């Protein structure tokens, strides 16, 4: 196997790793190589921070293992190689009447990554997290390959789903797809004037797919204003859209400066008529709004950006307001800010979701951004909430102590699965996740 010396990053490009990377094209090659070299795996590196990075170590790039292995049209169970992008899976089966029950905000995320981060989608309040729909995982733990199910190995299963790849390399998985009417979505968008209205709108929403875009630059009476998007899958004529566009080079630092973002957000808010609107779109558009612009992370310039995402319990509305106020006055907010009401569904010990409100905001990696994220992390902690490891590149071990109540149980299961700590990544080391110091 050839090892390529590479410098690579997560999607945010603010955390960088260099090390040797292998990119097997067959499962048999991966199995053989892992017998000799135990190292973590990554997919499309769409997580933002350093959860998929292994600086000064080795790693496996899974993106060439991207095939459907088997599909049962009677039950809708599909088995795929872990490097398959989730959007590909959606496109391959939607016109046959099946769709992945959970899809994250980008179709480029791989199935392996979706499991390892136990991702959620705009329908989390209905369908729970991705891992809850996985029925079997092939896990390569060095020389040993195990096919596990939630029943055959319950402890290892819960340590693997949302387990950040620490129990071994996820080589393939079976997913229970969900029947769907077609590959179109009826999408209703309406303006929401402030945070309180948003929370009421979430309570009243009855659609399967619900998400809020927030104008994170708004303050005062307009704090928390934005657009509520509600969608349902339907059938119709799918005129596939134009080919994807690409951001060809790094944007200058003023591209997403405070005044530009304020103007952009004002226009984006007014894009939706005051009375709202309903349209029918191919499902890929509302599911993966930014996938149409390849390399959009370059808009943040060469220093990259961070995303902060937390979830706080339902009764912590005042803390949410305090966070939005802090963000709104920071001058660091970008156009990308999302609010969503989460259900309780989660698949593993270290899964992110909990019942409450989840807020995600991008910040360009400028001076002050990391301090602000650190402050927001403390606020989430004080609210009894938690941050999302798939996004994080900033927090410290002390800051996340107690956020994940099952952390110690997870660390024990992981120690059993990987006693040599061969699958550790930069985030796991930075946060000391496996040290057992986390449980407060």
């Amino acid at each position, binding site marked *: 196997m050839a090892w390529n010396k590479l410098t690579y990053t997560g999607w945010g490009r603010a955390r960088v790793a260099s090390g040797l990377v292998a990119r097997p094209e067959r*499962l048999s090659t991966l199995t053989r190589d892992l017998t000799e070299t135990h190292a973590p795996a990554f997919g499309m590196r769409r997580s933002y921070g350093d959860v998929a990075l292994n600086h000064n170590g080795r790693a496996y790039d899974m993106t060439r293992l991207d095939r459907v*292995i088997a599909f049962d049209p009677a039950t809708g169970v599909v088995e795929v*190689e872990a490097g398959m992008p989730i959007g590909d899976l959606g496109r391959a089966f939607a016109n046959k009447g099946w769709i992945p029950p959970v899809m994250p905000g980008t179709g480029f995320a791989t199935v392996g990554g979706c499991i390892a981060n136990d991702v959620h989608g705009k329908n989390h309040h209905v369908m729970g997290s991705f891992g809850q729909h996985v029925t079997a995982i092939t896990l390569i733990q060095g020389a040993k390959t195990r096919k596990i199910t939630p029943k055959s190995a319950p402890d290892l299963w819960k340590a693997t789903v949302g387990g950040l790849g620490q129990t071994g390399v996820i080589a393939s998985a079976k997913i229970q797809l969900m029947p769907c009417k077609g590959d179109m979505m009826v999408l209703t968008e309406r303006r929401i004037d402030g945070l309180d209205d948003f929370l009421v709108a979430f309570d009243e929403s009855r659609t399967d797919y619900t998400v809020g875009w927030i104008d994170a630059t708004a303050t005062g009476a307009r704090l928390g204003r934005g657009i509520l998007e509600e969608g349902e899958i339907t059938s119709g004529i799918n005129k596939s859209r134009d080919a994807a566009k690409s951001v060809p080079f790094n944007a200058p630092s003023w591209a997403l400066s405070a005044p530009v973002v304020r103007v952009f957000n004002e226009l984006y808010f007014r894009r939706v008529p005051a009375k709202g609107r309903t349209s029918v779109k191919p499902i890929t558009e509302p599911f993966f709004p930014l996938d149409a612009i390849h390399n959009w992370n370059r808009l943040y310039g060469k220093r990259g950006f961070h995303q902060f995402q937390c979830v706080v319990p339902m009764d912590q509305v005042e803390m949410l307001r305090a966070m939005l106020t802090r963000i709104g006055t920071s001058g660091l907010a970008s156009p990308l800010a999302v609010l969503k009401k989460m259900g309780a569904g989660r698949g593993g010990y270290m899964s992110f979701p909990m019942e409450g409100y989840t807020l995600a905001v991008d910040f360009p990696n400028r001076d002050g951004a990391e301090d602000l994220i650190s402050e927001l992390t403390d606020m989430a902690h004080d609210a009894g909430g938690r941050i999302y490891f798939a996004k994080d590149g900033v927090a410290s071990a002390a800051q996340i102590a107690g956020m994940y109540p099952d952390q110690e149980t997870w660390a024990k299961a992981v120690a059993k699965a990987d006693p040599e700590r061969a699958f550790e990544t930069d985030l796991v080391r930075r946060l000391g996740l496996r040290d057992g110091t986390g449980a407060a």
Partner: protein
Amino acid sequence: MQQSWIILGATSSMARAMARRLAKEGATLFLCGRDMDDLAATAADCLARGAVCAEALLFDARDTDTFAPIIERATAEEGVINCAVFVGSMPEQDAIDATPELIAGVVTDSHIGPATFLQKLAPYIEARGQGTVVGVGSVAGDRGRIGNYVYGSAKAGFATYLSGLRNRLTRAGGHVVTVKPGFVDTAMTWGIEGMFLVASPDAVAGDILTAVARKKNVIYTPFFWRYIMLIIRHIPEFIFKKMSI
């Protein structure tokens, strides 16, 4: 009319990408190679993406006994029979210097095996009055270079064979596309120093299918390799012999 494609060397990433594109067009696919587990995975993938039929069949360029069953199976289908050849092997030149006997294998994998197979298939294409053969050569076949001249000479031989086959099949309604890829981002080039302007296997597959649709004769992919090789071919031998590129 139903399009059937025999793909030789279907475990290569370029072949896989091409099979996937053909699957989306609803083709019938015969995926041929030696790693049957891997071929079965590609077959399942192609079926999920729209192939009417996708089967994994054993093909070994060094074992002519494996040829007839493939041709028999493919010609049992009605419609147009096409064939794409992706096979070839490239041991390090150092390894060949140490063991010159390796040359027989390289030439068999890249030239003799596929040429023998196509020679057996040609009468069927002639009989049906249509069908396309895609032969993947290499820019390495355009000029012998110190780094890989054994591989290059095998590819050059295959390219000449394809030229003759094109001459033959054209008069019966068939067609032959000779493909010369430059650097492609595959397992073969992963981690090798000095790669530049590397193309993705999917982009190469797209170029090949465009060439098939437009009945091109010889294509370089990505296209600019035509000009790079034009220059390299025209360097006078008395200079070229002292260069190491």
